[in-house]
Structures are given as structure tokens and as C-alpha cells.
């Protein structure tokens, strides 16, 4: 596997050279700070570098989209965040955004326009699908997923929230793997338990945690790889796998990670 050095310019750096990125990569808080999600962030950069898309990140100028604040009921904080972010994005004349987080995706795509922020926003799984369709990504030259059982967990904010069901599946279909659907999938999918600001608090008391409930579907599918497309789902599913002591048998991998591995990037 060849490891090219990764080029990740910031928008500010590009602006200093009088350039604008083709697409802004909105990393998101999880992608920036969560150790597991950081790996996914780097993999998304690898894909962008590999296909030669001129992208940039905001770096220290990026801030939380306000999603958890809004869903927890703090509309003030949400709109403060949103307006500040829109100012930054507009100052750099950003038109197109890709993000690895369905929560950032949903918020910027659906809630920012009402506050004056209009951008074309795509989730990284949609970008990957597009690159596969264009023949720029092939699932060749890397790790073989041949015969492996892979299942995909639909993030609520990508699936039910925005009807993106096919793109992440398309990224898996190019692999020579055995794709299986969980009992609860697509519009019938089960939440990982982290949305709506649940990520930042203890769950209310009940019989069990939601990610543990989700593990029954994962185990039933007999998949050895669970594909995720959201950093929150990644945390919840990984914790679920740990809780079952199945780390040796079941890997939780983001669509971007699987793509990077399959292409040997």
C-alpha cells in the first residue's frame, strides 16, 4: 500500500494564496476531537486527495453547527452558532460542503437556509457514491472484503431525516462482499441512541440502553463488519460490540474507512 502524504489545506491558507476550494470539508466536532472519528476524518481526506478534489477545511475557524443545542431545546445557542458559522462560510464564499457527520449535514443543509446560509451540502457517502459512479473509485488495490458479511446501520439523520439510504449502500456494493440487511433497516432502522443530544447525557432509566438493543440486530445479521456513516453511531455501535465482548469478531467501520481500505489508500 502506498501512503502518499496527506494534503489538508485550510480555507484561510488557500485564501492567502488567492484560491478557493472546490469543496469545503466540514469536519464537525466529533471528527475533530473524538479519537475514533479522527481516523474517519483522515480517511475522508485520503479519498479527496486520491481523486484530486481541491478541498479545504476551516480548521480552527470551524465551530459546532449547533445541532445538539437545537435538539436539546436551546434555540438561542443554536442560532448564535448558526449565524456565526454562516458569517465564516459566506466570508470565504463557500458554495459546496461535504461532511462526515449526518448531524452537521442535516443542520447545514436544512436549517441554515432559513437563517440565510445557502450551500450545496452532501454527506461523504454521497460523495463516495458519486466517485464510484464516475469510475474514480473502484475498490481495487487494497484490502479484500471478499465473502465477508457486511451490514449497514442507517443513521437516523441520514436515512429517515434526509432520505439518504442508497448512497452508503452503493459504497458497499462495489466490494466483493456479502451484504446483509439487519432486521430493522432503512426507514425501519433503529436509532443508535445518541441523537437528539442523547450523546451528551446519561440515558433515562429503562430496561437497557438503545445501543445494546441495536446489538441484537447486529448479532442476528451474523455480520463481521458493521458499516457506519456517522461518528455518533460509530461510538454507540463500538460500545455495543465491546459490551458483547465481540471486538474480535465484529468490526465497526465507517463507509469512508471501508472505501480507503478497499482502495489501498
Amino acid at each position, binding site marked *: 500500500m502506498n501512503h502518499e502524504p*496527506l494534503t*489538508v489545506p*485550510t480555507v484561510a491558507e488557500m485564501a492567502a494564496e488567492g484560491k478557493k476550494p472546490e469543496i469545503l470539508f466540514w*469536519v464537525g*466536532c466529533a471528527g*475533530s*476531537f*473524538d479519537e475514533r472519528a*479522527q481516523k474517519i476524518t*483522515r480517511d475522508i481526506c485520503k479519498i479527496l486527495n486520491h481523486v484530486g478534489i481541491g478541498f479545504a*477545511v476551516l*480548521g*480552527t475557524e*470551524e*465551530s*459546532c453547527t*449547533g445541532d*445538539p443545542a437545537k*435538539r*436539546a*431545546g*436551546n*434555540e*438561542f*445557542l443554536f*442560532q*448564535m*452558532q448558526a*449565524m456565526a458559522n454562516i458569517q465564516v462560510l459566506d466570508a470565504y464564499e463557500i458554495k459546496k460542503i461535504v461532511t462526515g457527520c449526518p448531524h452537521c449535514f*442535516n443542520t447545514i*443543509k*436544512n*436549517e441554515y437556509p*432559513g*437563517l440565510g446560509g445557502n450551500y450545496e451540502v452532501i454527506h461523504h457517502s454521497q460523495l463516495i457514491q458519486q466517485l464510484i459512479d464516475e469510475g474514480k473509485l473502484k475498490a481495487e488495490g487494497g484490502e479484500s472484503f471478499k465473502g465477508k458479511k457486511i451490514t449497514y446501520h442507517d443513521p*437516523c*439523520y441520514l436515512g*429517515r*431525516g*434526509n432520505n439518504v439510504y442508497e448512497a452508503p449502500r452503493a459504497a458497499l456494493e462495489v466490494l466483493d462482499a456479502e451484504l446483509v440487511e439487519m432486521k430493522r433497516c432503512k*426507514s425501519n432502522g*433503529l*436509532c443508535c*441512541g*445518541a*441523537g*437528539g443530544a*442523547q450523546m*451528551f*447525557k*446519561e*440515558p*433515562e432509566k*429503562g*430496561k*437497557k*440502553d*438503545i445501543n*445494546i*438493543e441495536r446489538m441484537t440486530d447486529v448479532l442476528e445479521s451474523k455480520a463481521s463488519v458493521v458499516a457506519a456513516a456517522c461518528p455518533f453511531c460509530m461510538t454507540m455501535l463500538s460500545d455495543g460490540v465491546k459490551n458483547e465482548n465481540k471486538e474480535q469478531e465484529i468490526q465497526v467501520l465507517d463507509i469512508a474507512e471501508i472505501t480507503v481500505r478497499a482502495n489501498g489508500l
Partner: protein
Amino acid sequence: MIAQILFIIILAAAIYLFSKNAGKIRRNILLGKDTDRSDNPALRWKTMAKIALGQTKMVKRPLAAVMHFFIYAGFIIINLEVLEIMIDGVFGSHRIFSKPLGSLYDLLIGGFEFLALLVLVACITFLSRRNIARLKRFSGVEMTEWPRSDANYILIIEILLMTAFLTMNAADHKLQLLNFGHYIKAGSFPVSSFIAPMLPDGASSLEMIERGCWWFHIVGILAFLNYLPYSKHFHILLAFPNTYYSNLHPKGQLTNMASVTNEVKAMLDPSFVPETAGEPGRFGAKDVTDLTWKNLMEAYTCTECGRCTSVCPANITGKLLSPRKIMMDTRDRITEVGNNIDKHGKDFKDDKSLLDNYITREELWACTTCNACTDACPVNINPLEIIIEMRRYVVMEESQAPASLNNMFSNVENNGAPWKYSSADRLNWKENI
């Protein structure tokens, strides 16, 4: 003649009573705040046609979908027959459509009979699911005595009405064969002819049975009509407007509160003057009148089928939240507010509210905003919107968010991230390549 006058009086009384009670529900719904759902009428008609008329969201549960379709089609189509009964009742005629329609009439009556049979099958299936198989979906804390009886009453009434209809036809058929009185030969009776042998042969007793069933059937329908405003069965009417006024935005999108936008803009730019003076209302919803008329319409549309609750991840894992309960609580509270207005005048305020008296905070905080409930609802009800509005009240008016969420808020405010990391470290991930 006496029969005709009696019929007209009953009919008029039934219509008057129904419009009065339906009017009250309309008034209650309009106690909600305004929201604009007048955009994109073409898509709205299409949504209604697909979801209410076409029942497309029912198919997720095939058995329920087929059975429900029998009852639904039976209800819609048998109305033609009810129209004939009304005309006959007012003018003292008998099977007035039979002459002008001729052989088509035979076909129609035959069709109605099959539908009536299917409705019977469906109602019996539904009753057994609720009372013998005891489907989990029909239980839960909110499914107290009344909601369970309400469901059973509806099914039993439908069974009685269909039985009366078929018995009436059987007796009519027998009288037709006897060439008795005004019982002209009309209609084909593919189902009720199986009941006919069980009926007596004497013309006068047959006539009594026929008239008895006729009256029972039509008075029953009028009584049922007047039961609707007190029952979850009101969904047969509200499903249509409710789907017409559906949320057309992506499910993940929450409303941006305009009143907050004005304040935030004023904070960022002191020279900013909002276009419209903001109404002094509260942020979010403490009581039902803080919700929109659409939220309230949804509460009256809910038929308590429990599809929302059965897919709710919080409910599945044993938490207190049940989206169905959110809708039922909202309806119970708005009904209470409406009754207060009727009794004590429109400015009367009791010391109750939707929050705490009906819906607890524990329920509100258990929601993951995953939209499983809104997706599952066969008539596009959105319990999530009510939950978010109530969270907004708790957070923005009361500052009573759970401590861990307050920490998250201050992290977002101070560091631009929900975790306690410095924004200066946002690019650290780059270094580990």
C-alpha cells in the same frame, strides 16, 4: 308518514348534534398558534391522495393494512347505500335507486354485501388481536380503560351495523320472493341469501325484521356519527386534512424560531430592527395553546394505533417515553381547555398545563429525535415536534435542562464544541497522519 317525520327529526337532530361537537373540536384546534401550511398545494393534494386516500403507509404491517382496507373501502362505498336509505327514509320510498340503475343496482348491492362480509371479518380479526392475542402494541401506560373500551366499542358497533345490514337484505330478499307489498324484485344478495334460511317464513314477521334492521342500521349509523367526536375514531374525518397539511420538509429539519432569530440578530447587530414586532408569547410550549393548530389537529387525528410507540427506541428499551402518549395527552389537555372555556368563559385559566400535569420531563428527555415515530405514523402525525417545543420551554424559559446538557451548552458556547476541547486544537487530527 309518521315514520318519515320521525326519520327526518332523527336525521336533523343527528346532523345538528354532530356539527355542534365537530365545531367544538374545530374551535379547540384553532386555539393553537398559527403556522403556515398553505404552500405547494399540488404536493399537498398528492400527499393526501397517497397517504389518506391510498393508505400507502399502512402497508408496513400487511395484515392490519388488508383488514383496515376492508373496513375503509366498506365505509366509503357503503355510503352510496346509506344515501339510498336516507332518501327512502325521507320520502317513504323503498330501494329508490333500483329502477333507474337496473342491473347495475344488482351488482352494487351484491358488491356491498361482499364488503359488509369483509368488514365483519376484519372487525372480528381486530377484536381478537386486541382481546385474545393481546398484541403488545395495544398496551402501554397510556392505554387505560377508556382507550381500550373505545376501540372495542367501535369494532362492536361496526359488527352490529354490518349484521343489521345483511339481515335487512336477507329479509328483503325473502319478501321480494313472496311478492309482498312494495318489496319489488331488486338487488342480488350473494351473502345475505345465506342468512335467509334462518329467518321465519311469514311475511309479517319478515317485514318486522326488515324494518327493524333498517331502523337499527340507519339510527346506528347516525348514533355512530355522533360518537366520533368523543372517540379516536374521529381519524376517519381528520386523516384527510391532517395529511393535506403534512410537514413537507425533510424529517430531520426542525423549525427555526423566528422570535429567536430576531433576538439573535439584535445581539449580533445592535442597529438591527426586526420587521415585525415580536409577539410577547413564550419560547417553546408549556401548554397546548403554545403549540400550533397543526399539532392540535394531529392530536385529534391520532387513532392510538401505537405504530409510533412500537418503533420508538426509547420505548423499546423500557423508557417512559411513548410518542402515542404524547399525542393522547395533548388531545386530553386541549379537550380539557376547551371544556373549561365552555364552562367558565374564554379567559378562564386553570392551574394545569401539558407539561408536568400530563407529560413529564423524563419523557421529554428520553427522545433521541430519530423520527421513527413520524415515519411510522400512517397519517403523518409528528410527536417529535411537540417534544422539541416542550424542551424549548424547559430550556429557554425555565433553564431546567439536565445538568449534563447544561455542560454541553456551555462547551458549545465557550469552545464551539459540545466537549471541553479548545477550538485551537481543532486541527490536531492532522498531526497523527
